[in-house]
């Protein structure tokens, strides 16, 4: 306080004025912030998790909260621009009507689409089956693409172009997700870059910033002590290992490299096996479920869920095999973890890709010229977008069931068994651990499905929001009651960046199938807002043709090569500029460091001189 008073007296009158005004502004801002903190979702829960389990696990729950908000906003976006106009016009509010433009130049066979809405007396079981597989009564609701067979909505005298709105809303939610993720990861990315630039800071970081001052629970403190000791010991061991690796002889290197190539071949073989089995199972499931004879049999539901089950099995077995194999490859422990993680991410996200690829080959693959009139297999898939939406819906439901079932039926009983029976076999299983990376991959997988599926099923984000909301409480309960945190500690800075990086990979991977569906595959002529266009993308050029010629030329020019190539060159130049700037900054940092050393030397020199002078 005294130093602050002294400072204030030294300032001139004008500066005093600036200071008081900036202080009152700060006060006002802090008041607003205080109010806003009451509105933040789950603030208290996350705070208590941070106190008990530390920063790493808390960042997982913050990530969950972020996904809940993201999905909710995507849902609001799609609902208000796509579903709401139709609902308004169905009830005739604001004098609105739906316009159905009859399709022209399309062969009659392509436009036949009769979703089997259950009529008459049906078993209750059928409703349950329909709920889980998205067929029957669910197929005709606004959940799936087929409901939106509307060409325009007239609200009083204004025409609301629904196909265009549908397409633009899709691009909007993709862009929104991208921008939001980039904003969140900007901070972590910068720190990671700085960290990468100076890899020798790791010990200082662990020792000076190692203790989490937020921990309030004595048992959590014990855990933290243990994990800190473990981490320091592992790092020291790793350093010794690295020295050993640097001293390897030529023959040893040859042996290890050939071993690594061999194991990578095994990994690729396993991955191909997984993908091939997903392909076969999806093809089998699609063929059998369209066979109406089996439509009401018990096994039909099982057949429909076969792809989801196989994918979940692959996602479960894959990581186990990878963590077993990597032991033979003799990497440093840190690199081992990164490589296993990369392989697991690849398995999870690529399996969705394989599923979609199989679906497309089914949809556009015709045995003998069945595709001629419409461009896709109209006999089996009169409304193929609804089918893809149903597959995504099934994947999401199954994922949700698995996430609920595993803690309930595996983790919790395991904990009960291990704490109450001291039989050797059971003790070998050990307590369930909260594996951070596995959990993160799980929810990124779910989010990728949501991103892909929203185009085919506009209400899917609502299901995703509810799903993540429930998952938060389930994971929190399982963390508190059943799991032990993994012994390998996770640092907060690394983890947030890792989560967002994996999420970004998921987003890019979700974009590719969407781009293919929108731009390449002909849209179904029997249902959906795009039945008057060749592909879904055509709604945009169609709209542009309504504009005056000048605007048309500008917009078409933007999409041509004459514009794209110079733009690309310009972006490259900008990128090189920033890289050069970063390098210059690094050099300045080095120079400043050297200056710091010189200052220290100057200081000791002067102190010595003073001591001599005093004598």
């Amino acid at each position, binding site marked *: *306080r005294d130093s*602050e008073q002294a400072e204030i007296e030294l300032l001139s009158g004008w500066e005093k004025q600036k200071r008081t005004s900036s*202080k009152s502004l700060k*006060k006002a801002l*802090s*008041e607003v*912030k*205080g109010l806003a903190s009451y509105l933040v979702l789950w603030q208290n829960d996350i*705070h208590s998790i941070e106190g008990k389990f530390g*920063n790493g696990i808390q960042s997982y729950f913050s990530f969950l909260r972020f996904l809940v908000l993201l999905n909710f906003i995507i849902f609001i976006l799609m609902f208000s621009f796509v579903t709401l106009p139709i609902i308004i016009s169905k009830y005739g509010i604001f004098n609105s009507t739906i316009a159905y433009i009859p399709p022209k130049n399309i062969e009659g066979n392509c436009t036949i689409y009769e979703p089997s809405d259950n009529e008459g007396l049906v078993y209750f079981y059928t409703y349950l089956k329909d709920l889980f597989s998205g067929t029957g009564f669910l197929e005709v609701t606004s959940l799936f693409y087929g409901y939106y067979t509307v060409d325009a909505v007239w609200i009083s005298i204004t025409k609301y172009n629904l196909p265009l709105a549908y397409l633009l809303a899709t691009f909007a939610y993709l862009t929104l997700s991208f921008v939001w993720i980039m904003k969140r990861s900007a901070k972590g990315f910068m*720190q*990671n870059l*700085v*960290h990468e630039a*100076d890899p*020798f*800071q790791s*010990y*200082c*970081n662990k*020792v*000076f*910033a*190692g*203790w*989490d*001052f*937020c*921990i*309030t*629970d*004595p048992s*959590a*403190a*014990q855990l933290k*002590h*243990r994990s*800190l*000791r473990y981490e*320091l*010991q592992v790092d*020291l061991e790793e*350093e010794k290992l690295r020295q050993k690796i640097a001293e390897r002889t030529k023959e040893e290197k040859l042996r290890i490299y050939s071993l690594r190539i061999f194991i990578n071949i095994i990994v690729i073989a396993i991955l191909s096996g997984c993908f091939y089995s997903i392909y076969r199972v999806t093809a089998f499931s699609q063929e059998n479920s369209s066979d109406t004879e089996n439509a009401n049999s018990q096994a039909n539901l099982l057949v429909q869920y076969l792809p989801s089950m196989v994918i979940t099995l692959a996602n479960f077995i894959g990581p186990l095999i990878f963590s077993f194999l990597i032991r033979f490859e003799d990497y440093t422990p840190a690199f081992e973890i990164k490589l296993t993680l990369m392989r697991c991410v690849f398995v999870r996200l690529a399996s969705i890709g394989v599923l979609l690829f199989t679906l497309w080959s089914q949809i556009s693959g015709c045995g003998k010229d069945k595709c001629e009139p419409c461009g896709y297999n109209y006999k089996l898939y009169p409304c193929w977008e609804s089918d893809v939406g149903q597959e995504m819906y099934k994947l999401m439901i199954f994922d949700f069931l698995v996430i609920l079932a595993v803690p309930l039926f595996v983790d919790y009983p395991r904990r009960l068994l291990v704490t109450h029976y001291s039989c050797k076999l059971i003790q070998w299983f050990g307590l369930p651990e909260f594996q951070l990376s596995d959990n993160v991959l799980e929810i990124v997988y779910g989010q990728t499905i949501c991103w892909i599926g929203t185009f085919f099923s506009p209400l899917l984000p609502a299901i995703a929001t509810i799903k993540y909301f429930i998952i938060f409480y389930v994971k929190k309960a399982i963390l508190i009651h059943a799991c032990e945190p993994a012994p390998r500690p996770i*640092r*907060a*800075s690394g983890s947030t960046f890792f989560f967002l990086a994996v999420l970004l990979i998921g987003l890019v991977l979700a974009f590719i199938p969407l781009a293919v569906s929108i731009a390449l595959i002909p849209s179904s002529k029997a249902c959906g807002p795009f039945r008057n266009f060749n592909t879904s993308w055509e709604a945009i050029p169609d709209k542009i043709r309504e504009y005056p010629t000048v605007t048309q030329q500008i917009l078409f020019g933007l999409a041509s090569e004459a514009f794209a190539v110079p733009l690309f060159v310009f972006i490259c130049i900008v990128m090189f500029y920033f890289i050069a700037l970063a390098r210059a900054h690094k050099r300045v940092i080095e120079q400043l*460091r050297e200056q*710091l*050393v010189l*200052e*220290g*030397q100057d200081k*000791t020199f002067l102190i010595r001189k003073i001591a001599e002078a005093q004598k």
Partner: protein
Amino acid sequence: GAMGGSASLLPQDLLGEYQELTFLSRQEILLAYKRFSELLPKEERESACSARVPKSHILTLPELRANPFQHRICRVFSTSETGDDSMSFEDFLDMLSAFSDSATSDIKSHYAFRIFDFDEDGILDRKDLEQLVNCLTGQGEESRLSSEEMEQLIQNILEESDLDKDGTINLPEFQHVVSRSPDFASSFKIVL
């Protein structure tokens, strides 16, 4: 309720002054006042602003109870002339301000340096670093690093942070190392 009650005990001008001099917001100061007065016996609660709380009571706070640096924190922030490490309300606010979210990294690194300087000679030498690492790994014989590991670790730390190679870390070197540390801001934080 209770919040309103303690607000009437803490005069408004003092509240405003504290808001200006620390990094804490209004709610945080009021909450700190409430928690501080709970540490005092009933008779002294009226004059909480000028009372001193003995160290043993401060250490019962959950935020400090599990902290291996609890003694150092009390020592650094206490302005007691008798050296008994008791804290007044202003010391308490000082501490919370330095550990708050909005404190600058300069302030945090300055106080961190003082906390880690166990022998209070203004530099972090090998003995300080050894004590620091022992605090981190936990009390008790079996939770300490072996002397060989400790040597290797201290060697690595000094290699990374000791720029003038004099075998000790002074304040500018410490602040430089901590400014490059991505976890420091998020771990050097206490929120009531």
